[in-house]
């Protein structure tokens, strides 16, 4: 009873000091534009897939930084690579290679 309201589920715990940075590091090297994102959400607003399903490039960025590889892998599968987001992005993030490079990095882990 005394722990009411303060319980943290272990699987929901994100320890930024112990994040799995392997995929992020691969991207820093192969698609450094990923770091320039300001999370404005323009990509998500214009996304073709995002109109049909809950798909959010900002979520991809968050999962990437948290090192949550399994959900990341599932998320990027929804992308159709149509490229509208690249034209909209005010920061020049190369979203299409972001998606492909995440998949390549995950392949390398296995």
């Amino acid at each position: 009873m005394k722990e009411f309201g303060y319980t943290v589920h272990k699987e929901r715990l994100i320890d930024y000091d112990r994040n799995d940075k392997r995929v992020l590091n691969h991207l820093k090297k192969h698609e450094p534009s990923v770091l320039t994102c300001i999370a404005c959400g323009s990509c998500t607003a214009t996304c073709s897939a995002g109109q049909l399903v809950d798909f959010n490039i900002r979520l991809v960025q968050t999962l990437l930084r948290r090192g949550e590889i399994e959900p990341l892998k599932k998320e990027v599968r929804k992308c159709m690579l149509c490229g509208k987001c690249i034209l909209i992005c005010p920061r020049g993030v190369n979203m299409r290679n972001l998606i492909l490079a995440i998949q390549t990095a995950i392949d390398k882990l296995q």
Partner: protein
Amino acid sequence: MISFNLFVLPFSFGLIYLLYMIIRWWTKWIRALPPEDRARFRKGIFSRQFFSGLKEVFLESLVHRKMFRRNALLGFMHMSFALGWFLLILAGNIESRIYSTSHVNPPYYPIFLKFFIHDRTVLWFEINTVPGFFRFLMDFLLLFILSGLILAMIKRGRSRWFGMTRTTHSQLTDRVALVCLWLIFPVRLLAESFTDGYYGAGGGFATQHLGNLFAVLFRESSQHIAYALWWLYSLALGIFFVTLPFSRYWHIPTEVLLIFFRRFGIPPKRIASSFSQVEIGACSRCGVCIDVCQLGSAARIHDIQAVYFLRSVRDEQVSRDITLRCLVCGRCQETCPVGINIDLIRLIERYNFSGSHASDFTYLPEPAPRKAQVAYFAGCMTHLTPSIIRAMKGILQEAGIDYHFLDEEGSVCCGRPMMLSGKHEQAGELIRFNRELILQSGADTLVTSCPICFRVFREEYNLPVRILHHTQYLLELIKSGKVPLQTVFRKVAYHDPCDLGRGSNEYRAPRELLAKVAELVEVPEEKEDALCCGGSLGIYTISSRKRDLITSDALDKLTSSGPEVLVTACPLCKKTFSRLAGIEVLDVAEMVYGAIPE
């Protein structure tokens, strides 16, 4: 008596090795063909196509017709080596047969003929019928090749005279083979001259006179010098033949096979196959593709051009980043003198790198379009340029067309961007969805505003309906008088989108439309040579800064004759140009819509 000297060994060994390699690889490639293609090959050999193939081999591999069309000096240089050497071998063989006492000659015999025969009395044919014919011919052909060699040397320093700004960076094997190739002919000239000079007979107009001079200068020692030169000549030939399969010159035998593959109707494949391997081997690394690549000329990326890409594929050293760093604009393919399907090979390699990840498109809805005669598909990119949609809706309404806007609520991607990443299966899922959508609309005409969609609809969808780009459809409407037009007097430059022009071979419709509503100005590189806007979906690994360099460079050229409006027929080109253009950028549809009288 068999003529023999130890120095023929390097040449003979080299020749045997080269023939072994050619036979080995040709059989390997032919046997690896799928059964239906092997049947085509067998059938082709005994058909008329075989002879038209031979003709093409003569015109392209020897005369280098396409090189001539590009630049006369470049063409002459290639022709003098290829045709000159071929004729030298041919004439040398005939000559040796006539002068020889035996009917069976070893293969080295014609090559070193002058070493073995310098006695004039043997030359009964020439004395009795055409005096000095072969001596003249052989010298003439040798000088013909040497003229090409001099051009090749000049090209090293003055490539611009040959219509090339940049030339290929060569590999070690290429350099070894090149040095040997360059040595062969001058050494042959010297060896023959020294021999003719020493014996005082047997030479032609060049070799004899040069030889006489050497005989005066070097006296008795010219015999030894000649012998050393014959050794050098044989060594140069031998090393050239041995390095040939590992150098750019491997294209010589491979291109011949490629020409026959094409003639026999063997189609290119989407995955690595004999055909793609033969195409990769047939690249002569002439470097014609280097200058046309905008990544090099505008964005200063110099390691990904077709010649380097194909070389790294052949050497099995291609990297993912390089494979994905290409606009797939098709400019190199258009200019390639061998006609290699470069874009296709690019996509094959991308397929090999595409990894294990499946897509998850379970979210795609059930397609439920309204029935109509005409289906309009705007495409993802057109949704980013609502003015094009507005124009199209306005024109279609004006013309009173019963149409259904298939993707009014947002597009599902046509699948081409996914294909460009090498993910065929995933693209297939998107294609299946849109195909169903189009079929269910019951339309007999499909109109799209996006050349990217247009191309994939035509190439991959296998639709039983008429597929038109909006420029083609609008031209039809105007010609049938359904849309009244007035000319708006504005100077416009037209930019050919890659997937509409080179990709779908449509250059006429947009120009005809524009001619009706405005004044078209000259553009330096257009139609087949049109530039990419820089926004291409074909490239994955490039920074936005480099993209901007390509766009600015293309804009400079497109606006060089001072148009008021830059017109294109692709929403992606429009969107890309608009960001950096100093003038208005419009789609052809917008121009047409603007020309409809109030």
